[in-house]
Structures are given as structure tokens and as C-alpha cells.
């Protein structure tokens, strides 16, 4: 009797093979699909003359894959995801800087310092004063826009992170569900290849979002566990949900949902990219830009508060809203605000006198106590109005005040000379200096031979000797030191008597005036809060270009202009313009590096994907060849059965 089982087994194998080929071709373009290959093995059905005779059966339908390659792809995908995410965001930041076009940050910064430089040539020019104020306004607005852009971007990062985290949770749930189905089918002895492809694709999608580790679950064929930064996301059939949130230090972190224990130690993938952007790149960028804005504001203000503009000295000034707490508790204390002294100069226009008063500032002071010290001065009233320090003159017709660093001359107690010194000029020294002037031999100014005033600095060194006897015409200025000169009127000087000249390099060593917003150029202290003082915007004549007693020099304008190229300790000893360029090109550097890394990763991924496609992909031609082969096999098996049947018919006819 012919054994139809052999033909039937071949038919079955060919049938299944054609179905598998169909599945392969149908999924030729399906992402994550692994080609399925058949393993056909012979089956023994009977033994003839000691030789086994039999058909064939499908021993296994397996996914064509290289586990090492798949693992490598899974490892590279999060890296590419992170780089891509970082690049996308950094390119937005780069666009926000607006460099290499007009109105970029370096442009407006350069324009601001340039306008101050130009103002130095014509300090009294209203047009140039306005130009400088508008250039400052453009700079402040650029800072604000940039600050706001970074804030918006941070919010966007948060929202994008939430969205991606939802995707993560959906993917982990899907993986867990697929794990369950795979386990069920595997237990039944099936090969759930398509489900495994689906699950592996979900894992691959997950890897694009965050770095994951995949472990086979022992004893459960086909089931995997998925971990991310040490936290199990998928354990067999169960998934753990994650959430994104802000943790200590305003850092973005990931936690198991509702556990509240955020970790920032997550790298890789788009979420890793967002976390790196928020926690490192943006924090650094924000800090650098804030430092730049803050240093420019602080240093310009530190000069500006001391000077006066075309409008001259003041009748009233009001600062910005301040904390009523002790100065020592202010955030600026220790950096831009310290123990020190500021000098207020009160001019009595009727008496024709100008008196400088030292106001000490300590950590224990409050705005109220400082106001009290100012209020105690003749000609001034001061108080705290709406949390702001307000200084005004007692009588507008009589008094004016300013903070010019004018040299302070103090005659020793018991001074009996009838000729008093008058100090002129602007002190050019970098540090405050106290000159002690001693009349070594007394006499009549312009007459007595040997009438000399010896000038010593704080270190006790003789700086100069002023010959005021015969040959000196009363009223003539004689050079002292540090850009200062002194004149003596006719009269006498008494031997042994002394006077001191306090040469101020800075009339506010405490930084209080800047901190309180008194006669400042800018308001605010950071990128987003930077703005030009309203008083200055309303009246550019208040731009304090002068610090000389005549109020017509350009020293302050030059000093402010020089700040653009002056190395500042808070900017790592770089000048503001240099620092600005470093920040901008730093972002460019990151992008350039990212692009190169992205390109390299993409190239690597392409190679891996090509390699994977060669191993796991569907080659239509190959499948077509197989199709022909199994079609022929099917026809041959059918023919075999037909032949066997025909043989059997013949046999039957013989009977």
C-alpha cells in the first residue's frame, strides 16, 4: 500500500512554507518585523530494508535575528534619541540668540558699550544720551526676551517630558501585555513570533525615549523584563508607571508614579536628553547668561550711582521696592552688597558749600536705618515709601544732593592757618587713598621761603612736597597725586598743622545705592528682570556721564564704556563682550559637537540597520525564489499523491 502520509507531510510543509512566505512579504515594510524562517526536518514513517522512509515536517518557525546586533541597536537608539532631542532644542536656543544677523545679543551688547564710548566724545549731547539709553533699552529687552525664551523652553521641556513619559507608560503597559500573551502562547507550544516582534518594537520605541536594559526571564520562554536606570519598568506581565517631576534644586527627575522619589540620574533617549537639557545644559546656560546680565547691570550701576548727568545733582530720588529685613539677609549680601560706606554730597546753594557725608552700611542695617542716617543730615529728608528708599532735599531752592566721589578735605582740629586748601580734579587711583598733608614750615602763602606742605599717602610714603612760599601765586593749582591738584588762597599756614584729603575711588564701597536702586542705570539683577531705569528712559539727561565736581566731564561715560572690555572676576576673568561671545559660541560648539555625534550615530545606526536588515529583513526576491521552490514542492507532492493514487487505482484494477 502506498503511504500517502509522505506526500501529505510534504504538502503540509509546502502549504505552511507558502503561508510563511506570504507573512514575510506582507511584512516586508513593517518596522521591527523579523523575517520568519522555517526549519524543515524529515520524519520517519516506516522502515524498508533497514532504511527509514518518511516525509517532512516543520520543526520550527523562527525569527531570523542576531541577538548581539539587536542588543547593539537597542543600546545605540537611546544615544541617538538623546542627541537628537538636545540638538533640536539647542538649535532653537541658537536661533534665539539671533547671531550673524542684525540685532543679535553680541550686536546689542556691542552697541550699548559703543554708544557709551560715543557719548564720551560729546557727554552733554542730548542726542547721544538718548542713543545710549535706547541702546541700553535694546540690550535689556534682548536679555528679557532671551530670558523669557529660556523660561518658555524650560516649560516646553517639562510638557514634552510629560508627554513622552505618558508614551513610556503606554509602551511599558503594552510590553507587559504582550509578555503575557507570549507567555500563554509559548506555554501552549506555539511560536508567537509576530507578538514578539510587536513587543520588541515597543521596547525599541521605548529605547528611543530612555535607556533600557532587557533581560530574558528565566523559565518563561520569550518573556522579558525591562529596566531603566535600575528601576524595573516591566516585570513579566506587570508594568510600573513612571512620572516626571521637579526635584531639589529645580532639577527635572523621574520617579515611580506617586512615589515622589525622583532621580535625575537618567541618561539616554529623548527623556534623557530633556533631563540633560534642563538640569545641565540649560542650568549652565541660564547661569552664564544670568551672570552676564547681572554683572553688566551691577557694574554699570556701580559706576552710574556715583555720577550725574546733564540734569545735575538731585532734588529727590526713589529706589525700588526693598526687603524690610536686615541687609545681611538680602540675597545680594556678600556679593554685590557688603559692609562699607557710601558718601552723599549735599550742596547748599545759598551758602555755596558742598559737604560730603559718609553713611556706613552694616549687615545689621535695614533700609529704614539707612534712611534714618540720611534723614539726619542737614538739607536732606529720607524715608521708606512703599518699601522703597526715598531721598529728597529739605528745600528745593536751597539744597541739592549727589553721590559724586569728590575728594574730602578735612582740616585737623585747631587748624589756625588762614589759607585753606581746595582740592580739584578727579581721582584716578583704583583704591581709596588718604593723603596726609603736613605744613612742615609755616608762613605766608606766596611769601615765606621754605613754606612747604609735605604730602604722604596711607602707607606713609612721601608722595610730593608742595612749595607754597615765594614763587607760588595764591589760587594756582599744584599737582598733588592721582589726578588731583590743590590750590591755596592767600593767607598763612601754621607749621606742624595737618589736613587730610580722602581720595575716593568709589563713593559707594558698600554697593548699597545699587542694591537699593538709587540713581541706577538698570533695574533688575538677572536676564529676565533686566530693564533700564524708568527715570532714565523718561529723562536721558539723567545718564550719569560725569563724576567731576564741575559735572561736565566724561569720566563716568568712559568708565562705563570701558566695562565692555574689562575682565570681571564673576565672569571667570572675561570681559562681558568676551563672555557673551563665549556663551553664544559655546552653544554653537555643543550643537556642532551634537551634529557630529548625531551624524556618527546615524551612520552607525544605518550600518547596524542594514546589517539587521540583511539578517532579519525580508528580501522579496529571496522570498519569490522560495515561493517558486515551495510552489514546485507543493506541485511535486500533489503529483506524488496523484501518482500513488494512480498506482493504487492500477492495482485495484488488477484485482
Amino acid at each position, binding site marked *: 500500500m502506498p503511504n500517502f502520509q509522505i506526500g501529505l507531510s510534504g504538502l503540509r510543509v509546502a502549504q505552511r512554507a507558502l503561508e510563511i512566505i506570504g507573512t514575510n512579504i506582507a511584512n516586508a515594510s513593517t518596522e521591527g518585523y523579523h523575517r520568519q524562517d522555517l526549519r524543515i526536518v524529515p520524519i520517519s514513517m516506516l522502515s524498508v530494508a533497514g532504511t527509514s522512509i518518511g516525509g517532512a515536517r516543520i520543526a520550527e518557525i523562527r525569527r531570523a535575528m542576531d541577538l548581539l546586533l539587536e542588543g547593539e541597536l537597542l543600546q545605540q537608539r537611546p544615544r541617538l534619541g538623546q542627541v537628537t532631542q538636545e540638538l533640536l532644542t539647542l538649535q532653537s536656543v541658537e536661533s534665539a540668540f539671533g547671531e550673524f544677523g542684525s540685532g543679535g545679543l553680541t550686536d546689542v551688547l556691542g552697541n550699548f558699550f559703543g554708544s557709551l564710548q560715543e557719548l564720551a566724545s560729546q557727554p552733554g549731547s542730548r542726542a547721544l544720551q538718548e542713543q545710549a539709553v535706547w541702546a541700553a533699552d535694546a540690550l535689556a529687552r534682548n536679555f528679557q526676551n532671551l530670558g523669557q525664551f529660556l523660561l518658555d523652553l524650560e516649560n516646553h521641556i517639562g510638557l514634552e517630558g510629560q508627554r513622552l513619559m505618558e508614551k513610556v507608560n503606554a509602551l511599558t503597559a503594552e510590553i507587559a501585555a504582550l509578555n503575557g500573551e507570549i507567555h500563554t502562547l509559548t506555554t501552549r507550544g506555539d511560536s508567537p513570533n509576530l507578538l514578539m516582534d510587536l513587543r520588541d518594537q515597543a521596547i525599541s520605541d521605548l529605547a528611543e525615549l530612555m535607556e533600557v536594559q532587557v533581560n530574558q526571564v528565566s523559565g518563561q520562554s520569550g518573556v522579558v523584563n525591562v529596566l531603566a536606570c535600575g528601576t524595573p519598568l516591566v516585570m513579566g506581565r506587570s508594568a510600573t508607571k513612571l512620572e516626571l517631576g521637579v526635584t531639589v534644586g529645580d532639577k527635572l527627575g523621574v520617579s515611580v508614579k506617586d512615589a515622589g522619589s525622583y532621580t535625575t540620574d537618567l541618561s539616554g533617549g529623548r527623556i534623557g536628553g530633556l533631563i540633560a537639557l534642563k538640569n545641565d545644559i540649560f542650568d549652565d546656560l541660564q547661569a552664564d547668561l544670568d551672570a552676564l546680565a547681572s554683572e553688566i547691570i551691577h557694574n554699570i550701576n556701580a559706576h552710574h550711582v556715583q555720577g550725574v548727568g546733564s540734569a545735575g545733582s538731585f532734588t529727590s530720588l526713589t529706589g525700588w521696592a526693598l526687603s524690610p529685613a536686615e541687609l545681611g539677609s538680602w540675597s545680594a549680601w556678600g556679593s554685590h552688597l557688603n559692609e562699607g560706606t557710601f558718601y552723599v554730597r549735599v550742596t547748599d546753594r545759598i551758602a555755596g558749600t558742598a559737604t560730603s557725608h559718609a553713611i556706613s552700611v552694616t549687615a545689621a542695617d535695614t533700609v529704614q536705618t539707612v534712611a534714618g542716617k540720611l534723614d539726619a543730615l542737614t538739607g536732606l529728608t529720607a524715608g521708606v515709601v512703599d518699601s522703597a528708599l526715598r531721598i529728597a532735599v529739605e528745600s528745593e531752592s536751597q539744597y541739592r544732593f549727589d553721590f559724586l566721589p569728590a575728594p574730602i578735605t578735612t582740616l585737623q582740629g585747631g587748624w589756625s592757618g588762614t589759607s585753606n586748601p581746595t582740592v580739584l580734579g578727579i581721582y584716578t587711583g583704583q583704591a581709596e587713598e588718604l593723603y596726609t598733608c603736613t605744613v612742615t614750615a609755616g608762613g*605766608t602763602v606766596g611769601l615765606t621761603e621754605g613754606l612747604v606742605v609735605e604730602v604722604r599717602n596711607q602707607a606713609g610714603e612721601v608722595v610730593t612736597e608742595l612749595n607754597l612760599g615765594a614763587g607760588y601765586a595764591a589760587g594756582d593749582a599744584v599737582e598733588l597725586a592721582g589726578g588731583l591738584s590743590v590750590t591755596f588762597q592767600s593767607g598763612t599756614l601754621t607749621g606742624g598743622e595737618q589736613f587730610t584729603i580722602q581720595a575716593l575711588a568709589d563713593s559707594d564701597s558698600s554697593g548699597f545705592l545699587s542694591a537699593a536702586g538709587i540713581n541706577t542705570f538698570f533695574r533688575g539683577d538677572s536676564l529676565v528682570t533686566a530693564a533700564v531705569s524708568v527715570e532714565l528712559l523718561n529723562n536721558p539727561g539723567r545718564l550719569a556721564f560725569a563724576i567731576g565736581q564741575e559735572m561736565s566731564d566724561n569720566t563716568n561715560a*568712559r568708565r562705563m564704556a570701558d566695562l565692555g572690555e574689562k575682565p570681571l572676576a564673576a565672569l571667570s576673568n572675561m570681559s562681558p563682550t568676551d563672555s557673551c561671545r563665549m556663551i553664544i559660541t559655546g552653544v*554653537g560648539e555643543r550643537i556642532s559637537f551634537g551634529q557630529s555625534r548625531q551624524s556618527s550615530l546615524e551612520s552607525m545606526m544605518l550600518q547596524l540597520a542594514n546589517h539587521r536588515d540583511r539578517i532579519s529583513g525580508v528580501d522579496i526576491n529571496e522570498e519569490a525564489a522560495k515561493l517558486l521552490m515551495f510552489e514546485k514542492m507543493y506541485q511535486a507532492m500533489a503529483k506524488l499523491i496523484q501518482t500513488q493514487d494512480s498506482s493504487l487505482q492500477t492495482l485495484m484494477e488488477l484485482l
Partner: protein
Amino acid sequence: MGNWGAIYNNATYLLQVHAGKLAALQEQAASGARVNRPSDDPSDAYRILALRAQANSLQNYAENLDDVDRNLETSQDVLQQVSTSLIEVRQLTTQVISGTYGPDARGTIAEQINSILDQAFSLANTKSLGRYLFGGTKASSAPYVGERVNGRLTAVEYQGSLDNLPVPVAPGVEYPGLVIGERAFRAGERQAPLFMGETGAACGSATSNVRGSLYLTVVHNQTSYPGGTGIAAGTSSPTGDTIIGEHVLTVAVDGPNKTISLDGGAAVTFEGGEQDLAVTSAAGDVVYVNVENWAGFEGDIAISATGRLSVDGGASYTELTAFTDNVAVTDSRTGRILYVDATALLRTGVEPVRVPGTGDLFGTLIHLRDLLLNEPGLPDDQHQELMAQALEPLDEVAEVVTRAMTSLGGRLQAMDVMRESLESIQFRTGQQADMLEDADIVQVAADLARTQILYEMTMAVASKLLTLSLLDFI
């Protein structure tokens, strides 16, 4: 041949790469710039930004330099005009000195000098683009303020600043942007005052701080006579005596003739009842004596006269209480002091004083005009003498103005050199920035063509490979 997936991967990846390159090349070709954003080439971007900042800064410096140059050029023109005016004044003065000009002719020349004075005053207050050029840092108010009497300038005060306005014109280089009038129009090398009159006043030992030319007025107060001679001050003595200090009257009796003489001068006969007898010395000093109580005294009588001094035309006086070598006479208008050695002071009168090295343009012209008109009322011979010396202060001021012009000319020349240097640096900076920034258009065009071909090839090959299939042959 690879499978379709690899073909697809390669095609999409390479199309993406080529499209990216094409976009970048298109941007370079359209903008003409190789670096359009910092990430295009961060290190070059840093250099480009630095060079651009430097170029902008140099542009600001150049504008400042132009501004200073404009001011100084105008100031130079003003000084040139002043200098020309001074030459004209000198010519007029020389005519007066060398010619025989009567008061009317001198008056005409004084008017001409007055016009030049007005013109110089106006020039010194020249404004350019709304700024006064000769006020130092005080550019917003007129540096010279004049006092006028009957429309004529009688005093001009400098109210500008004595401080320079240093303008940054190059990195680390500052030039004074405006001229300090007080230095351009006034000498600054003070010498001892010259007393050019006959009063006997001389320069005190202390250093005076009055400036330019002035008149010391010596006025008689009172003449004192010793007792026992019967000679006393005449009724006109307080206002009529011209003596100051110690003098000697000599009474001689020769029979019926009684004479009295002053300092050995001509003897004046008196009868004995005269109450206001004028006695004149050989030097022309006059003393009025009262001899009505004379009782026969014969011999020398030491008399002394007190007086007072003024340097402000009588607005204030310093009483001569002691004839010391250092009497401080203060000008009430300026507070400045002339120290007078009064030990040899002999007579009243107007003592012309000049302090060489301190004269200024306006004071000199005012003084000259007034001298031509003889406003102080000097005697003719003294007037002539002073006129003869009138060129000295004029030359002194002319020299100051010339020196200021020379200094300004030097500054302008230095600025020209500075401008050339700045322009050269600016050019090099721009060139360097352009070299870094500009795209090599030929290279871009070649790259564009190559990339375009690659793009097309990628599509063509992919299309070809994806079209080929065994299925077509089944």
C-alpha cells in the same frame, strides 16, 4: 544585492544627508557667508564675532576721532582768525607808536581795536554742533562772559572748565576733544610784576596772583608835620598833596626873604600868613603847607604822608598804614592780590603794572584800547612811554595763540596718523572677518553641483534597485 530594507535605509539616509548638504550649500550661496550661525563653525564663529565687535568698536573710535577732528579743525580756524586779528592790532599799535597820532586818531584806532576785541570775544565763544569749543569740559555754556559799559567790553572772565575732555579715539588712546580757552588765550608762565610808573611803588617780595596789565592807584590821605616849626598841612593838603612817605621841607630865611622848598626843589617865597601854599619838588611832587603860624623856624622839616592803594580803579583801597615791602592790595572784583613794595613809595599817581607771562587776549586788547584813549588819565609823557611798551603784552598773547595753534596743528597731524592707522586696522579686521565668514562661491558652486548629482544618483539607484524584482520574471 542587499534586501529592499537596506536599499530603503540607504536611500532615505543618503537622501537626507544630501538634502541637508544641499540646504546648507544653498544657504551659503544665497547669503554669501560660510558661517551663518555659530554652530556652522564655532571656533571661526567666535573669531568672526570678536572681529565684528572689534570692527564696530573701531567704527566708534573713528566716529569719535572725526568728532574731535571736526572740533579741533574749527578751533584751529578760530585761532587762526584770532592770530590774524592780533597781527592787525599789532600793525595799528605800531602805527600809533611810530607816528604822531593825536587823541582823535588814537580814538579811531581804539575803536578799530574795540571791534577786533568784540570779534575775538565772539570767536572765543564759537559753537560747533551746539557745543562751545573753548570751554574745556563745559561745552554747554559760553566759556567767556563779558562785562560791558556803554556797550563796550570792560572785562572778560573765563567761566569754562580747566579740565580736558579726553575722548577715546583708539584702544587705550585718548585725545582732548575740546580746547581749554584759558590755555589758548592766556599766557601761563608767571613772572614778577613790572611797575612802570613814577610813584616809587615796586614789586613786593610775595608772589602776586594778579594777571595781565593793571593800574595801581596811589592816593594821598594825610601829610603829617612835626611840632615846633609852625608849619602845618595846608587846606588843600588832603586832596592836593601828591607826596607819599617820607619827605623833607626846607625853610630858609635870608633877610626878609623867606622861602620853603620840598626835597631840594625850587624854593617858594612865603610871607608868613599863607594857609595853603603849594610847594613843588624837583620831581614835581606837590605839598600844600600852612605857614601862618610860622615863627621863624629855619631848617629841614621831616614830613610824612600816608595814603591808600587800589588795583580795581578805586572800587576798594588798601590803607597804607606802614610802608612795608609787602603791602597786599586786593582787586575787589577778582579777589586777586598785588604785593607792593611800598618802602620807596614817594608820590601819588597811577602806576601801570604788568605781570609778564599772565596776559590774556581780552585783557590785553581792553587794556590797549583804554590806553589809546588814555582812560586812566596818565600824563602825556607817561602815556607815550606806556604806548611804546604796548607791543610787549600784545606779542606775549600772540605767542600764546601761536603756540596753541602749533599744539593744535600737531594734535591734528597726530590724529591724521591715528586715522590712517585706525583705517588700516579696520580694513585688516574687516578683511580677516570676511576671510573667515565669506563663502568660497566657486567652491560652493562645485559642491552644490556635486551634491546635486549625488542626490540624483541616490534616487536613481534606489529607484533602479527597487524596480528590479524576481517577481517580474515569474
